[in-house]
């Protein structure tokens, strides 16, 4: 940085579980180091509640789910040099975006008085409202992703985006393929890595936390699932999970939903 002023950073929360903010709070000593090198202007869970103005990097956790969320997103975009989404909710709408696939008003079936609640029918990613400079996928993101993003953006380098698939990560780590060895359906061939191939290392299939990889061959993977004995609706639900609104997963999920459902 050429300026003497410390970079100003904010963490903002919309509809979410708070798990991605823990990527900051779980940094331990590194959180204190970060706090000494940047000015943490606003981060409600950690304490600071400064005004969201004149920011170098704003991290957004959570999906746009209310009218207030929409206002927040537009306002921080105007005030931020870099806007970074953290996690599945902010990046793709998150697990709560499964409601986007339902017909009718879900809210009234949960709350007896839905008129009290500020609520949008769909849960959407931040990018549906404003331009986003960097998207950090993951459910949740981890501390390394966060620290790498801050360092890259502040030093003007292009952040090194993860391009590899979970499948490749398994091969690097010499984890036996759960689909080949055990016939367990796994989204690893079409999912970005970033988790370190966590689920296959626990003898289970990947369920897509880090969203679709580049050029995901979802149709052939779905056919493979069918070959393993999954029914169309089971295949659809594999793709319609924590990143259901990521276009590649949504399209594949819909393809298999239509064949099965007549509602």
């Amino acid at each position: 940085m050429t300026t003497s002023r410390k970079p100003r950073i904010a963490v903002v929360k919309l509809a979410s579980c708070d798990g991605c903010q823990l990527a900051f709070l779980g940094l331990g000593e590194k959180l204190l180091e970060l706090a000494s090198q940047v000015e943490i202007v606003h981060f409600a869970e950690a304490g600071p509640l400064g005004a969201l103005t004149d920011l170098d990097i704003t991290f957004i956790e959570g999906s746009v789910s209310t009218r207030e969320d929409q206002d927040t997103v537009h306002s921080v975009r105007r005030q931020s040099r870099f806007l970074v989404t953290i996690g599945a909710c902010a990046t793709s709408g998150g697990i709560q975006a499964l409601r986007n696939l339902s017909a009718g008003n879900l809210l009234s079936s949960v709350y007896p008085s839905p008129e009290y609640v500020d609520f949008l029918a769909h849960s959407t990613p931040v990018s549906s409202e404003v331009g986003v400079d960097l998207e950090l996928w993951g459910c949740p993101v981890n501390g390394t992703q966060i620290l790498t993003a801050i360092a890259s953006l502040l030093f003007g380098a292009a952040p090194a985006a993860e391009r590899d698939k979970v499948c490749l990560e398994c091969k690097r780590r010499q984890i036996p393929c759960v689909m080949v060895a055990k016939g367990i359906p796994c989204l690893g061939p079409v999912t970005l890595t970033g988790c370190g191939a966590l689920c296959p290392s626990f003898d289970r299939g990947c369920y897509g936390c880090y969203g679709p990889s580049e050029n995901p061959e979802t149709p052939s993977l779905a056919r493979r699932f069918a070959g393993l004995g999954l029914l169309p609706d089971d295949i659809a639900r594999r793709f319609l999970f924590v990143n259901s609104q990521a276009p590649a997963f949504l399209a594949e999920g819909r393809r298999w939903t239509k064949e099965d459902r007549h509602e």
Partner: protein
Amino acid sequence: MNERREIHVPILARVEGKGALDLTIRKDRLSEVRLRIFESPRLFEKILEGREFREVPDIVARICGICPAAYQLTSVSAIEAGFGLDPGPDIRRFRRILACGEWIASHSLHIHLLAAPDFLGYEDVMEWARHDPGPVRRGFHLHGLGNALLSLLGGRPVHPVGACVGGFHRFPMRPEIAALAGRIRDALPMASALVRWAAGLDYPASDRSFVSVALRTEEAYPMNEGRIVSTRGHDLTPSDFEGRIREFQVPHSTALHSLLEGDPYLVGPLARINLNWDRLPPEIMEDLRPFGLRFPSANMHHSLLARAIEIRYALAEALSLLEAPVPESPSFHSVTPRESTGIAATEAPRGILWHRYDIGEDGRIRRARIIPPTSQNQAMMESDLRVTLEREGFDRPDDSLRRLSERIVRNYDPCISCATHFLDLTVHREKG
């Protein structure tokens, strides 16, 4: 519109996250206390409908990034109860280790990052660390050990991937267990020091009667199972609990409020110790004696001390469970779904977490109901605010009232996102 309209709610949507507080003061009386939780609803009970039972643990984990394992553990117990499956002692043991990890991580986070700055007069943990880094480092270290236990069983601390209906996808490997057991053994003196540090804090006097509710078992301190008991003599199965509590919606909150037979009640670490202090190793209670502290306690500020005690307990408990041999048996049972209703209650870090699933013979969820700790505590928080603020008086600046209110609410460690400074306090002073 009737502001305190009380409505029976058959299905509950989960919230945590953003909250606010409105106080209305009229003639030195608090005419209104509104703890507003305005976290956007995410409708998990509806999302669960139609999903297969095996997907439930990974869905409900996403309700809370701070206690995802508690959601997973409660859901698998509820579903197994519905299917008539007993996981057996080995799987129970590893589930208890998972719960220990989450208690340690969640309590360490709350004590050091959220609550302690209130007691010490700092704005936040960063300021505290600049003045006195020792206790902060200790807190981070303990937090890291909690996370390491979660990672041992589930690969990562947030939304771990190890637990499943029927058991675990796999048990941890022996070398991983041995390495972590060694780190925990080394940290036991740190946990004892934490308890002594917490016992030495300056706790404001506060003594009011309230109802504590927690799980209780025949021998051990309660974590993943037990009957639901209260300081008013309740002794209920998790199934009976549903008929005794009433949830209702209020205009200012997307969290539903709960009352136990008409009264606010407390769940969480203080309630747990109040009802289970005799299940803790005697030396923990003896350590408190020089400080003039004992349980049961009617001082809500002691919830911080209760968390420190539970960290010490959970660390020692995890160590002894890790030291038992790794089972040769499979890490999970094969599961056959049947049409059923499965109910379970566990002690999440913040208190009783109750789940119910109605499942079809195809293994799909027909209906789900989840009662989390924070909605159970919400009525208590509001009544505590009312009583404590009126006792302390209003002859003080708004900022002082704001700090006191925030501190009262933080004692409950509400599982809503901005748990340090989530209060956007508005004081309305009415003339006349």
